[in-house]
């Protein structure tokens, strides 16, 4: 049988919220301090950093009307990058950039012997493809929605740098397993780089660590793949996000602003 809701208690009978240190000499009791621990810690940090303003600025900004699923492609790309970062850290725990055979052996160990190694390596490999598809889709969305136009030109340029860095990640990561396919594809790839205009020959010498593909080439690719480019990508994603938050997410181009009737001149 359904119960009727209890009638509201009159004000005078409602239990009053307790105030800290109410009973006694005004000191905060340990139980109360423990109950408030979370708030105290946040307060302590905020008193020193004033981070709460920034977080409010980031999270409680408004996004324009008409935002749809196409607008999730950018954050999806970032999420794929996070997947690459996390699986990459676990792969780096086992990987050895040793061209004499250690590299191949360590990847073989990851693939065949390490617990869930095959899955983590496969997630890193397929995550790269997913990230590249997503970054191109995101770019297509921005292009067709005209979202790169004023005032978001700089966001677009940073995005193009991120696209190139992502492709560079794919290129440098391809060598690391050091099997036949990755070795020879990278030799041809570096040689193709060398035919580029102006900086091409310098770039391929830099990638090879010399005029010939040698023992240090692998450690160079390893350092570029797991230190240089990920650092740049993380920093540039930060800049990209700062600009997005500062300038606001672009509105879909088919939506027109409704004039607020309260702002009409005749009514002023």
């Amino acid at each position, binding site marked *: 049988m359904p119960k009727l809701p209890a009638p509201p208690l009159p004000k005078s009978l409602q239990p009053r919220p307790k105030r800290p240190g109410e009973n006694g000499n005004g000191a905060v009791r340990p139980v109360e301090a423990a109950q408030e621990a979370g708030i105290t810690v946040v307060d302590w940090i905020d008193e020193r950093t004033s981070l709460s303003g920034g977080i409010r600025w980031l*999270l409680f*900004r*408004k*996004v*324009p009307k*008409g*935002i749809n699923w196409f*607008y*999730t492609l950018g*954050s*999806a790309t970032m*999420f*794929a990058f996070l*997947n690459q970062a996390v699986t990459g850290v676990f792969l780096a725990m086992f990987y050895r950039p040793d061209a004499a*055979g250690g590299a*191949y052996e360590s990847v073989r160990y990851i*693939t065949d012997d390490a617990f869930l190694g095959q899955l983590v*390596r*496969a*997630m890193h*490999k*397929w995550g*790269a*493809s*997913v990230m590249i598809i997503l970054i191109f889709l995101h770019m*297509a969305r921005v*292009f067709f*929605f*005209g*979202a790169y*136009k*004023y*005032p*978001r*030109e700089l966001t*677009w*340029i940073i995005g193009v740098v991120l696209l190139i860095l992502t492709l560079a990640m*794919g*290129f440098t990561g391809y060598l690391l397993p*050091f*099997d*036949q*396919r*990755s070795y*020879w*594809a990278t*030799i*041809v*790839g570096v040689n*193709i780089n*060398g*035919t*580029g*205009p102006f900086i091409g020959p310098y770039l391929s010498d830099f990638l090879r660590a010399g005029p010939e593909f040698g023992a240090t080439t692998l450690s160079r690719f390893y350092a570029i793949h797991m230190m240089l480019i990920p650092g740049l990508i993380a920093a540039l994603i930060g800049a990209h996000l700062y600009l997005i938050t500062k300038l606001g997410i*672009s*509105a879909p*181009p088919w*939506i027109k*602003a409704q004039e*607020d009737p309260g702002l009409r001149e005749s009514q002023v």
Partner: protein
Amino acid sequence: MNQAEKEEYLREYSILKNAGKPFFPYAVAKDSVMAVVVMVVIIFLAAMFGAELGPKADPTTTTYVPRPDWYFFFLFEVLRVMKNVPKFTDMATIGVPTICMILLFLLPFYDRSPERWIGRRPVALAAGLTTIFAMAYLTYSGANTGSPNSVDLNPPSSLTSSQRATFRAGEAVVGQSGCLACHVIGHNGNNGPGPPLTAIGTILRPQAIASTLRNPTAPMPSFADLAKDNPEKFNNLVNFLSMLQ
């Protein structure tokens, strides 16, 4: 965009923004759903297809297929297509990809119209769709190039039986080395980025072929290691190529 158009845009945008909803939780919810979808897709692909590991890299071997990951097929195909059109050979060496990259960087600076709705941006629509179709086509044709490892040629009838054996042995080295990824021999292989080898014997003498194999023009990999470690295989390769007439 001039100053008036900029202000017009900013005014319109601020009205739209004020009529919108807070980023948290509305946009965050959609982004989270998308993140879960991305994660599920990655785990599904990883569990379904795994990650293979080929034979160990060996600089002295010749058994390899120089193939990039699929998302670089379009770049490789651009080189191949450009090499096939003699007029554009110079453009290929200046770097079509470099030009495309610069065009991409500068997009907001040469597309300065205030219009954002794609239906009223015919040039942008045409350029965007062309780019998408070109990249899809190049990736598709890159994925469908013939196997660079199968060679099937008829030795010239003038050869003696020992020459014929050399021909077959050299043909096998060509197949293992994946030469056909970039070169065409008769009806085998791909025409470009490398020059056709169908009648290379009439153009270069054997010594010239050998020295080209040792010190090739980029992007071809060098065969100097093979010459050092397995001179017999290397000689078979040189003799085979000089028999192509």
